[in-house]
């Protein structure tokens, strides 16, 4: 493939040659001839003559296995396939030259843009001897959660003067996952109104305090008058009371807002980043307390993870949070309508949202409260993120802040435990603030 330099020299040579003939100037023609010879020699022995010879452009060239690069192969190994934000991944790239000719190669292992090379280099210029291999090691720092892929490996050979080059992408990919980082929480101040007496997410088929009907039995002293089933009494003539099925352990529902608007602000400081980190921290805390935790993310679709307990559930939640993308604009009301029939009354619900661009928020949270759910809202303020990034001026900020305060006050009036989560506030502080501590 011609480089810009060779294209410039080629054009210059043609121009000089024609001008030399026109002006009958042999010096010009001689310079043109020398340049032609330079180019020809580089094309012949630069290790990429096949491209020049075929006269095909690189993009038209279907034969990926070019002569110079067909014998070069790459393999990659990662130190870990799952890490947390701000963690490091060690990469070992193994380059092999299977041919009998030594090569000077430019190798660039493609790393996702958000990552930073911490140690070593992913761009290497090397002389790889005949039938030799070499190992390239570098470390990348992963500051943001997500699914990532390393690769492809771009390999280039060029002549010493950089006149012609040939490139090839070795399609070697390695996927890895960056989980949102977690904060250690001492207490969340969130407790279920349904007493927790048994661990595990299974339904307990036995009578006890709960919400669902279980059976009828005769009245004993001490039973609440409110539990008496008067219809049954009328039928049988005996005082009968309703027994209820004991609810399982505390079911904690985490709702994460991943609509497009949640990503407003800088890449590393926005509501979605804070929400996912908070959800991960809360999930870890509750699962550590042996509660069952469910997760719902909503953006362009409502994605839910059913309640469960244990370490496996933590990784399921973390994986889902790692892949949460800021897309769509589904209102919270849709989520509420969908999940209400499936969650036990009294279960604590924690909503993580910046509360923006959703006119249904008040009604949706009112629906939760009307059914006696314990609702906590942690609202990372994207106003603060944008104001800190100097994208908002003081006046605009004040106006929007006032609007936000009005909304928060209204929600607080509904009995929602809500906290305007400012960027520098720790999650534990925000939670304590929300719960009125």
């Amino acid at each position, binding site marked *: 493939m011609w480089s810009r*330099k060779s294209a410039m020299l080629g054009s210059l040579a043609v121009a000089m040659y024609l001008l030399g003939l026109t002006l009958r100037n*042999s010096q010009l*023609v001689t310079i043109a001839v020398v340049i032609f010879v*330079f180019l020809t*020699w580089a094309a012949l022995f630069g290790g990429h003559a096949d491209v020049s010879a075929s006269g095909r452009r690189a993009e038209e060239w279907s034969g990926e296995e070019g002569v110079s690069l067909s014998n070069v192969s790459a393999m990659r190994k990662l130190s870990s396939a799952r890490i947390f934000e701000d963690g490091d991944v060690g990469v070992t790239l193994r380059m092999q030259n299977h041919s009998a000719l030594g090569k000077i190669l430019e190798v660039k292992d493609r790393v996702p843009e958000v990552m930073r090379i911490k140690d070593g280099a992913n761009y290497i*210029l090397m002389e790889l001897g005949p039938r030799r291999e070499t190992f390239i090691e570098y470390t990348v720092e992963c500051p943001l959660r997500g699914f990532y892929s390393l690769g492809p490996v771009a390999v280039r050979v060029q002549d010493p003067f*950089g006149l012609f080059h040939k490139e090839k992408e070795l399609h070697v990919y390695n996927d890895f996952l960056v989980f949102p980082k977690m904060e250690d929480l001492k207490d969340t101040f969130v407790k279920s109104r349904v007493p927790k007496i048994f661990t595990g997410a299974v339904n307990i088929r036995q009578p006890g305090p709960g919400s669902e009907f279980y059976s009828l039995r005769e009245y004993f002293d001490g039973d609440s008058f409110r539990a008496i089933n008067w219809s049954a009494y009328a039928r049988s003539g005996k005082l009968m009371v309703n027994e209820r099925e004991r609810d399982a352990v505390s079911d904690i529902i985490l709702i994460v807002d991943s609509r497009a608007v949640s990503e407003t602000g800088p890449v590393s400081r926005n509501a979605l980043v804070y929400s996912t980190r908070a959800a991960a921290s809360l999930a870890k805390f509750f699962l550590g307390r042996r509660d069952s935790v469910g997760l719902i993310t909503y953006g362009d679709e409502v994605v839910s993870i059913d309640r469960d307990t244990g370490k496996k559930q933590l990784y399921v939640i973390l994986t889902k949070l790692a892949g949460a993308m800021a897309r769509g604009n589904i209102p919270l009301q849709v989520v509420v309508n969908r999940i209400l029939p499936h969650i036990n009354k009294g279960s604590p619900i924690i909503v993580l949202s910046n509360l*923006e661009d959703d006119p249904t928020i008040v009604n949706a949270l009112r629906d939760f409260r009307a059914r006696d759910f314990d609702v906590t809202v942690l609202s990372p303020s994207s106003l603060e993120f944008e104001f800190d990034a100097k*994208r908002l001026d003081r006046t605009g900020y004040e106006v*929007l802040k006032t609007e936000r305060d009005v909304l928060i006050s209204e929600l607080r009036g509904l009995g929602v435990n809500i906290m305007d989560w400012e960027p520098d506030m720790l999650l534990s502080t925000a939670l304590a603030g929300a719960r009125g501590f």
Partner: protein
Amino acid sequence: MATKSGDTAHLYDGKTVRSSAPSRKKLAGNASATGEIPKDAIPTVEIPTFIESLLGGPLVPKMKFLPADKMVQNLQLGCYGVLIALGVLTYIVTPAVGTIWFAVTGSMTIATILQLMIVVSAIGTGFWGTMSRDARFMLASYILFILSVMRFASSKVSLSQDLFNFGDSELLLTILVVIYAVLLVMYFELSNGVLRFSMLDTSIRTREVYVMNVKKIIGKYHRSLVINPLIAGTLAMLVLSVNTILPAFISLFSEQTALRMSESVELISVYGVALGTLFVFIVVGALFALDLPTHLQSWRENKD
């Protein structure tokens, strides 16, 4: 959202304020006092200019080079040497006769002074460009050198200074012109190499690039700096000596025709050079058409 007037009433138009705050994304574009879009909200797309495309990099380097290392210093020294030799040879092989300034002024003295000034300027800008590693001065130097050779000539090479009587020998004249052309191309390459290796060296030292077996890579470049000019010079000599080679070949069949050919004005003029070039590059073109380089490469790669 604040506008110049400070009126925020439009924020509430058609909206129930208590329901939610307005979309921040929509507001990002006009939330400042002046209403302009924040600079960091617009992704920057850098498209290289025409000149940058030609030079293979930015004309004004955005990368600030670190102080030159030994390799770059050596290249700079080589470049200075080539530049001086090129300057002298340019002055010798490009007499003021036939230049544009001679045609315009009609004065040999003024034309000579102007021609000399151009050559000196070419050397000066070349020196400065190489020393400061600034592509703009290098480009100016290239243009001045090319400008100095743009002249109407009478097909035959003439010299402005002939202290060693090169003009008496056709071969020596040809050698002189070939050396001049090779030096010019070498100057292009060396000055370009100064920039390339400065960028590479800076990238290495800022840990953007890691280089394995530096000595071998540099050694290959050094070898090429010697071998390529020799080959280019030899081949150019071959092309330029067509007026000798062709009659010698024809003499195998007819002495008379060969004699007439060697005395032919066309063959000893620039058109003879053009003919030689045509012959050589027909052969080269045929090699490429037969895909010989691929076969050659393939054979070299796969031999035991």
